[in-house]
């Protein structure tokens, strides 16, 4: 059975209580909004990209502990990183969430998942979310919005 402690790891509560990289960036930083229509979570991401590097990122919005901590953890993971690296992190994280998004309720046992966990470092704290399928959308909101931001900057 899924346990609350799997979901609300200490690091998640920490990022929820003290979110990192909170705030706005002035233009020419790019601004993108994300939205979870089911629960009303909202996020606004500001990204500053220079020479293929995500030099700065700020976030505002509101949502549950999972969406807030996920966005905070994300910001620390991608800030200052080359865009390829950012995209790779996004892919790895979404992979982690997706693995079981399709198999509601099953336990996480696949080996690629284990490898992903190691690659994700602190972000791995969010792995427990997959045991709570309805909360996956909370965890991925920031990441989908970041993908959209990168795509918009690219376009």
């Amino acid at each position, binding site marked *: 059975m899924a346990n*609350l402690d799997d979901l*609300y790891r200490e690091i998640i509560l920490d990022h929820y*209580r003290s979110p990192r990289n909170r705030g706005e960036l002035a233009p020419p930083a790019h601004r993108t909004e994300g939205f979870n229509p089911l629960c009303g979570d909202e996020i606004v991401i500001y990204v500053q990209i220079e020479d293929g590097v995500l030099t700065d990122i700020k976030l505002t919005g509101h949502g549950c502990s999972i969406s807030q901590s996920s966005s905070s953890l994300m910001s620390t993971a991608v800030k200052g990183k080359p865009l390829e690296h950012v995209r790779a992190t996004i892919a790895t994280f979404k992979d982690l969430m997706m693995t079981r998004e399709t198999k509601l309720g099953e336990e996480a046992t696949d080996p690629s998942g284990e490898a992903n966990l190691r690659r994700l470092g602190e972000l791995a704290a969010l792995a427990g979310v997959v045991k709570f399928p309805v909360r996956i959308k909370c965890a991925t909101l920031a990441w989908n919005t970041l993908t959209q931001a990168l795509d918009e900057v690219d376009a």
Partner: protein
Amino acid sequence: MTRFDPKLVRGDIPLMNRVINGRPITYLDSGASSLTPRSVIEAMDRYYQFHHANVHRGVYQTANEATAIYEGARESAAHFLNAPGGSEEIVFTKNATESFNLLARSWGAAFLQPGDVVLVSEMEHHANIVPWFQLRESHGVEVRFIPVTDDYRLDLSNIEESMHGVKLVSVTAMSNVLGTINPIRELANLAHSHGALLAVDGAQSVAHLATDLVALDADFMIFSAHKMLGPTGLGVFWTRQEIMAAMPPFLGGGGMIKDVSTDGFTPASGPSKFEAGTPPIAQAAGFAAAVRYLEGLGMENIAAHEKDLTGDALTRLALEFDGRVRVIGPPDTEARGGVISLDVQGVHPHDVAQVLDQFGVCVRPGHHCAKPLMKRFGLAATARASFGPYSLVSDTDALLEALTHAVEMFG
């Protein structure tokens, strides 16, 4: 009528035997959908096992039985609501939402002119907002909102001025977020004195308060079976016979026609005009059983029971959390029902509900399809607990215990 024993009611609800995370379920989400008594389930089973057939055009025995069951449900509805014109005033739809769309697209599209105003309130469910926005797009009507006061009531202080151009007032009898009970009879008088009609969203009220359409003097009444101990898949639309007769058809298809040729069609009369296609027959059987069940308990008794529960819960919520748990809705039982929306300081409603689930406590987090109201109070969501006739004080005990954990966890 003597009060019923809610423990016996609970015994009639199979789902109450569920054990969630090692604890008996504490179901506090009747505002979203009520639990189903055995007799309602059995009424549907009986239909499928003994009387299943399509209705209206059969000659054989089971088809007649199915028709009698379906039309009998219309009579149950009329009796339950004290519909002045009887069962011919009852249309079955798929849910309250379809009923509102029927109201907007048939009556609204036929009788409202560009610039005419539909007056709803800021505390409406999206079902009573979006169809009017759609009608605004297609027909140019204006949608105006009655504001909500800081103490969670309709702000009727300037209502006379707001009535300019209003042809329909469409308001909920009980807010699905605040629990507020609105003064329907007063609104009917107001509407009628300005030559407007009154539509009532009874989705949250019909299972919790007695409904008397004659006393309320409303012109339209809308609700769903699944919030009144009945099945999913059935909604009710009521209006006076003379209004119904003037309304053009909505959905087209079999059963709603008088004649069809390759040139065109002429619609049927009566409720059939609005019931295109095979209707929710089994669901009508279940709905009638739900009405019987509610009438057996007595709506006054249910209201009194839930009022007691609500009063107790409001008092204890106010006492036990040092202000960290705020009730978004009237603080006492004066003109309010058993829907209690909570805002827990520092804990997002999603997290509240998640922690509560761990204790088997079922509450609903979210905007409750009332985003304008959420925006009015600067909230993204609340965690909502709501009672039914099967609720007990022990449910409130479980709620408070679990809430304590939630508050501590995010402390």
